[in-house]
């Protein structure tokens, strides 16, 4: 375990039991987040990116969902080995999380101030008075004026952008080492998106925390990421340093993703989209899960799963096209 890594996920598998069978939502995923780094997980809906984050937080809903294997290293400890209570003291304290829907993520019957004070009182053992003072400071820090008044209002009285700022304030309240942001800007206006992302970056630079950013928006990735992990059907298919990955995408899926991103000033007749659909997670057999949507599909892709192999200095890909032995056939 590299001590440079704030988060070190090794071979994580999270499965869900459904009536029709077991869904391997996260299947043997490894990823690392270094200190002060922003790592983006990119993928379509259902690719397992959110479940990876929820597994780190220990918020997978038992008994249907379960982390079945692997390890999640955080500051030299395996989070999966901790008791529920030990994990709870890390959650919201050293690892914090913000979510996609700010409108529903705050409790409608509790005042903003109370919801901000809770982690301060729980983790930092602040008194009620000190917590309230700090809560009002935090509201100011996330760029909301009239902080005192906002602390006494209820979530339905604020806009989505303001609520997401409040969520960020809650998340950074205890000075986390790692912030997990699960599509934090998806539900917001474009102008607000930029403000929220700027704010996350600013807090990262000020505090030196790391960010695990989950998104499907490649614009956000280009803007924010140091390192990118591309997930497909519960697996990591490609990962790399952001510039290398954008300049030289190797996996056909990553190439497809980059091609389907609209480019400003270049109006196309038709936007490109990757043909086909995400496979049914219940019907997966050993194969490259992308094979039936892939233009370069070979026989081996249908029967054997490619392993994640290093191809460049900063890049790894799981694709048979890059296996030397096969490529020359």
């Amino acid at each position, binding site marked *: 375990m590299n001590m440079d890594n704030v988060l070190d996920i090794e071979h994580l598998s999270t499965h869900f039991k459904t009536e029709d069978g077991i869904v391997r939502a996260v299947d043997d995923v490894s990823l690392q987040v270094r200190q002060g780094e922003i790592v983006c997980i990119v993928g379509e809906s259902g690719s397992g990116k959110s479940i990876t984050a929820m597994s780190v937080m220990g918020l997978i809903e038992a008994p249907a969902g379960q982390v079945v294997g692997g390890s999640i290293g955080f500051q030299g400890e395996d989070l999966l080995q901790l008791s529920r209570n030990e994990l709870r003291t890390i959650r*919201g304290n050293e690892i914090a*999380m913000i*979510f996609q829907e700010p409108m529903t993520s705050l*409790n*409608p019957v*509790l005042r903003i101030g109370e919801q901000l004070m809770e982690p301060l009182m*729980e983790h930092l053992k602040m008194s009620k008075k000190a917590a309230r003072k700090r809560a009002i400071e935090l509201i100011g820090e996330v760029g909301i004026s009239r902080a005192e008044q906002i602390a006494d209002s209820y979530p*339905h009285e604020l806009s989505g952008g303001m609520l997401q700022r409040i*969520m960020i304030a*809650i998340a950074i309240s205890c000075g986390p080492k790692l912030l997990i942001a699960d599509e934090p800007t998806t539900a917001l206006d474009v102008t607000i998106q930029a403000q929220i992302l700027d704010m996350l970056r600013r807090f990262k630079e000020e505090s030196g925390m790391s960010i695990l950013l989950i998104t499907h928006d490649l614009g956000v990735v280009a803007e924010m990421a140091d390192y990118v992990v591309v997930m497909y059907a519960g697996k990591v298919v490609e990962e790399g340093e952001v510039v290398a990955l954008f300049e030289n995408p190797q996996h056909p899926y990553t190439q497809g993703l980059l091609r389907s991103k609209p480019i400003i000033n270049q109006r196309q007749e038709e936007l490109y989209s990757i043909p086909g659909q995400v496979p049914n997670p219940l019907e997966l057999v050993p194969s490259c899960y992308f094979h039936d949507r892939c233009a370069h599909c070979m026989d081996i892709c249908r029967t054997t799963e490619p392993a994640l192999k290093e191809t460049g200095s900063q890049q790894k890909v799981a694709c048979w096209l890059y296996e030397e032995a096969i490529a020359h056939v």
Partner: protein
Amino acid sequence: MSTYITKRILYMIVILFAASFLIFCLYALTPGDFITGNIKLTPERKAELREIYGLNKPVIERYAIWMKNAFHGDFGYSLSQQKPVLSLFNQYIWNSFLLAVVSTFLTWLIAVVVGVVAAYKQYSWFDTIVMVALFAAMSIPSFFIGLFLIKMLAVDWKWLPPGGMLTTGSNSTGLAYVREVIHHMMLPVMVMTLLGVGSLTRYFRSNMIDVIKQDYIRTARAKGLKERKVLFTHALRNALLPAITLVGFELPALFGGSLIIEKIFNWPGIGQLYMQSFSLRDYPLLMGFTLFIAILTVIGTLVSDILYHVADPRVRL
């Protein structure tokens, strides 16, 4: 807020007028009255009595008289008991209220606690056992469970008295009186709680299950709060909100008495008086009681609306 309440009170008056008219018509237009049923009276005497009670006047005029008296706090005069209706209410209603208030309190307490725990441990063995037991409790008719418990607890094991509010011939006072009443009300309260707890527990369980799935519960957990805090501060308040509607309906239920339970346990409550008045066609008493329940229902809905405003910041009045 105050304009809202003024508006609501005006509506209430209109609704009560309509209700009183319907209630009056229902009883006044039913063929026969208290006097018809008495076969000992000669036709002349019957006509004379109708004259005295004002029953020979046109229906509209009788309604006007009834309403005028009601405004002055006079809900009529019971023909069979020969007492003012209100003093009869005062005599019987508190006995019913005593049973209702204790059993309602127990019902809500059990329903909230069991419902929350069952929801939290959904599909666990505890949840399964609770659900089966609740269905059983809801499905058994009150007269059966009432008689069954009398047979077991009162007749066979002699733990509790089988009926009444006091032991026959008892003239205890003070603390001994209180103890005797408590002893006597145990069986009826037990049965009423048993019958009411099923649907309410299921209601709280399903509310709670809905709330636990909400995003803000996930946020509360992500903040690292203790599970107890997540459940009771964040989830329970939201799960209890819809139940405020029910609180409004509990108000008339507290005073309405229970026909069957009071009959089975021979409890001197308003439900028994009501049944008895029915068979005697004592219409002034029946009308007065129905109007009383109508008033309580209307007040109950207003109270629940105001409570909503207090409990849920999103509700504006």
